[in-house]
């Protein structure tokens, strides 16, 4: 019998990209007994969910750094706990203020209430009620991210039936919640929260969740929706929002990869794909970059971002022109960067010193809504934010293995860093360190001893995310999570069910429904659709 991957003995499926979604798709297909090959360009699996040691003794979660919506069914089906995955919950959401102790929101409602009451007794009273209302909505929305998106433009009775069911569920929420859902989907985070709260110091950090990974400000319509996700977290079934994977986010990818291998999937690293082989409008395999080897498969699945997939791996000549136009209209503007820092010692926050529970969660540099909006303003006109929004986590406090004893790792997600600099994205390399300095300068206003304690710093700009991780324009979600690019329109209206106009070519990355974040849902759902369609 000839080698697997030859024309006479093709794989059942080849998956381009060993990110967490590609791996998830592979694991599901392998579990169903299919012969699967994953091709990863880098020397290590995980894509943007990857842990690497860039300074001796320290481990960075290089890109994504926390996890919230990893689907429980994927955890179960792929036995990720057995394969070594352990997620610890974040203990607090701390928002320091430059001249004040700031605000901590804790898992304990009474503690949170006392903190908020310091800012506004009225807000403290409403906060739990807000949580309950939004929590009820998140239960309504959850089915959306666990099944393929129905298409309202389709005349297929199945789609229409699914839509009707959704409409019914929507009305059944009752008028107050229906109105709330409507507002949540269309309003800006700040406007939405102002209907409930009066304290800007509370509204600012709450509104941040809506801007992560988008090229929008907290006052831009449509940014309220992501608030829901904060009430949707499902670590171990508890409703705690965010968690940290022991070993960094790479540990998630490793667990999925290990699961996939246990089912018989083959994973090859340092194997960059040059293009998809297409014969008579059908995908038949891939051509590798080095050496031009051809590998054949009955189905090809891309875990890469849609524009990269169709423009680079496929080519417009193989696509209907209308589809090609829509792919190029797909918005991928990167807006964030990442700074990973190795610290020689613990550095205190000015107004809440110590390495207690308040810093064992995520820390938001978001002192006011105007501050956040100004940060967006800089980016809108083509520069990085002089005083950015930063979401900070100290992984070494949650997992001692991330740094040598007494030393620490600091993971800074930074917004905004626009891919399109006024002088052009290719000028990012020469601005990279200035961007890193802006981040450190900002943090030093809250942590005065910071600069002296830095041993090593890694700065990733959107340009780097594109060059090193294949994220088009550095967009961390493989395409902006705007209303016009979600559900049945992700990535292109009518093509949200993982199929593409090229027969036997599928999508399984974050550019497919339901989108970005370490969810695994696009990968899992794509595999299920392929199996259901009898494609593999």
């Amino acid at each position, binding site marked *: 019998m000839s080698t697997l991957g030859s024309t006479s003995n093709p794989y059942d499926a080849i998956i381009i990209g060993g990110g967490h979604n590609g791996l998830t798709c592979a694991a599901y297909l392998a579990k169903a007994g299919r012969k699967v090959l994953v091709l990863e360009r880098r020397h290590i699996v995980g894509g943007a969910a990857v842990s690497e040691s860039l300074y001796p003794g320290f481990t960075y979660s290089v890109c994504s750094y926390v996890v919230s919506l990893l689907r429980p069914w994927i955890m179960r089906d792929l036995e990720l706990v057995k394969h070594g995955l352990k997620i610890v919950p974040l203990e607090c959401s701390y928002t320091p203020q430059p001249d004040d102790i700031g605000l901590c929101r804790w898992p304990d409602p009474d503690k949170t209430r006392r903190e908020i009451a310091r800012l506004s007794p009225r807000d403290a009273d409403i906060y739990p009620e807000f949580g309950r209302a939004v929590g009820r909505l998140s239960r309504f929305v959850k089915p959306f991210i666990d099944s393929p998106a129905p298409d*309202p*433009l389709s005349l297929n009775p199945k789609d229409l039936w699914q839509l009707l069911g959704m409409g019914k569920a929507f*009305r*059944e*929420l*009752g*008028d107050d919640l*229906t*109105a709330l859902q*409507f*507002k949540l989907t*269309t*309003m800006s985070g700040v*406007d939405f929260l102002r*209907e409930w709260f009066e304290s800007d110091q509370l509204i600012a950090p709450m509104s941040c969740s809506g801007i992560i990974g988008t090229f*929008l400000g907290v*006052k*831009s*319509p*449509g940014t309220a929706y992501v608030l829901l996700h904060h009430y949707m977290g499902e670590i171990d079934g508890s409703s705690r929002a965010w968690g940290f994977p022991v070993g960094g986010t790479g540990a998630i990818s490793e667990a999925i990869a290990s699961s996939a291998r246990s089912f018989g999937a083959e994973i090859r690293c340092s194997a960059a794909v040059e293009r998809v082989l297409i014969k008579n409008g059908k995908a038949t395999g891939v051509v590798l970059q080095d050496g031009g080897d051809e590998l054949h498969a009955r189905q090809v699945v891309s875990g890469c971002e849609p524009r990269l997939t169709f423009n680079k791996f496929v080519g417009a000549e193989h696509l209907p022109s209308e589809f090609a136009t829509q792919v190029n*209209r797909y*918005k991928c503007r990167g807006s964030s960067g990442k700074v990973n820092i190795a610290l020689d010692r613990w550095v205190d926050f000015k107004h809440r010193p110590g390495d207690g529970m308040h810093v064992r969660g995520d820390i938001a540099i978001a002192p006011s809504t*105007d501050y956040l*909006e*100004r940060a967006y*303003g800089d980016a*809108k*006109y083509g520069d990085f934010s002089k005083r950015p929004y930063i979401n900070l986590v100290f992984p070494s406090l949650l997992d001692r293995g991330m740094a040598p004893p007494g030393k620490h790792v600091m993971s800074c997600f930074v917004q905004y860093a626009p891919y399109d600099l006024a002088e052009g994205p290719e000028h990012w390399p020469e601005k990279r360190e200035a961007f890193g300095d802006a981040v450190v300068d900002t943090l030093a206003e809250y942590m005065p001893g910071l600069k002296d304690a830095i041993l090593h710093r890694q700065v990733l700009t959107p340009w780097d995310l594109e060059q090193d991780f294949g994220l088009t324009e550095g967009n961390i979600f493989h395409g902006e999570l*705007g*209303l*016009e690019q979600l559900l049945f*329109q992700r990535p292109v*209206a*009518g093509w949200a069910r993982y199929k593409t106009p090229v027969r036997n070519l599928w999508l399984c990355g974050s550019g497919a429904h339901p989108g970005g974040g370490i969810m695994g849902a696009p990968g899992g759902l794509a595999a299920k659709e392929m199996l259901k369609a009898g494609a593999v």
Partner: protein
Amino acid sequence: MPDVIVVGGGHNGLVAAATLRKAGRSVVLVEARERFGGVADLLFDGSTLSGEVAKTLGVAPDDRGDVVALGAGRTLTLNGSADDPGYATWQAWVTRVSTILASQLDQPAPDISKTAPVWPLAKTGLAVRKLGKKDMMELLRSAPSCVDDWLSEHMTDGLLKAALMAPALHGTWMGPRSPTSAASLVLRAAMQQATCSPRMLGEQLKTTAAGVGVEIVGGQAVQRIRVDEGRVTGVELANGDAIDASTVLSAVGPRKTLLDLLDPRMVPGKLAHQARVIRVRGTLAQLRLEVSGIDWPARRLRIVNDPMHLERAFDDVKFRRLPTVPPPLEVEVDGASVRVNCWSAPYELDGGWTEDARAALQDAMFDSLETALPGVRDAATVTELLTPADIEDQFGIDGGHPMHGELALDQLGPMRPSMQLSRYGTQIEGLWLGCSGVHPGGGISGRSGLLAAKAILGR
């Protein structure tokens, strides 16, 4: 005792009053100002009166000629002939889609409440499906996006894009980079059914209403809408007079009606909350001038350079500050009388609208005018400057917002001004809302007044 009291003689109040009277109801209309028409006096560019309203009331369209855009050192006539290649295709799409959407604006918004029947909803769905798959796909894709992205997919000329989008941003509290601003442009296009000169509209409509037998009281503010045991019993005027009636249609804005005109003890907490959260941040300032010796290129002008010019002006609104760039302007010329609208003057200006702030705004507006039309500053005499605070005071509208509620997706259609209030009736028996703060809202169309009157007649 009249059958109905209409509070407010803005264009919607007048339309509602005349409609009710024509259907045989006795109507008293009370207006606080001496002059009628309310904000019709302030809005001009792109303002339209719905075809059905114009026909019902016999208001003749008035051709005011093309709109001319001035900016970036160029002059551009907006009559569909601009030579940007994508313009014609885009315009054709907008015309197709807005014609179908316009039919939805002539009827009440779909009722999405739990107890509502499903059939009318399904009918709305079917009506929209008439667009056909391709147009509907484009509508669903474009509407949530920002207007700058959307127009940039079709056109390259910055001046053309800015001039097309500028009026769609009025009253939205959005800039060209704000998501859903493309929807505002589609809505704006659907509103545009006939043109007439709003400046004269108030008096014209007043004559019409009086002609059909509406009893009109001018120069008298309604101080309170009286409610007894959850039912409307009449109104009290500022001069102490009272008029009894069991039906009151308020056309002065939902927020003001529910929060200022009612005794707070009569308003259920939930209803008061719904009213409080209606967003009415006004951004309009108007400069009124007498100008001689200027050769105007058209009767209506838009002064703007490109989309980012509009965005920077919106930044000023967002940060509650005076113009940091010469603001984009809209100009209407009527002989020597010239009105200039600036849509980036924040109602919530930090420090308030002091004399210094007013002077600075006026200066900035002249800077913009002068760049587009050199010599205007010297040729003009200022008759009046209206800031959003003045508009609130003089016209009696909350936040100085001429549409009684920002035009945003969460405040449109079945959500305008809230889900429970979008059918013109309120939880208070006999109290109705009929102004642009209720579906379909927007500029000068008269539809909200007409639909509110029809809702009362339907009861």
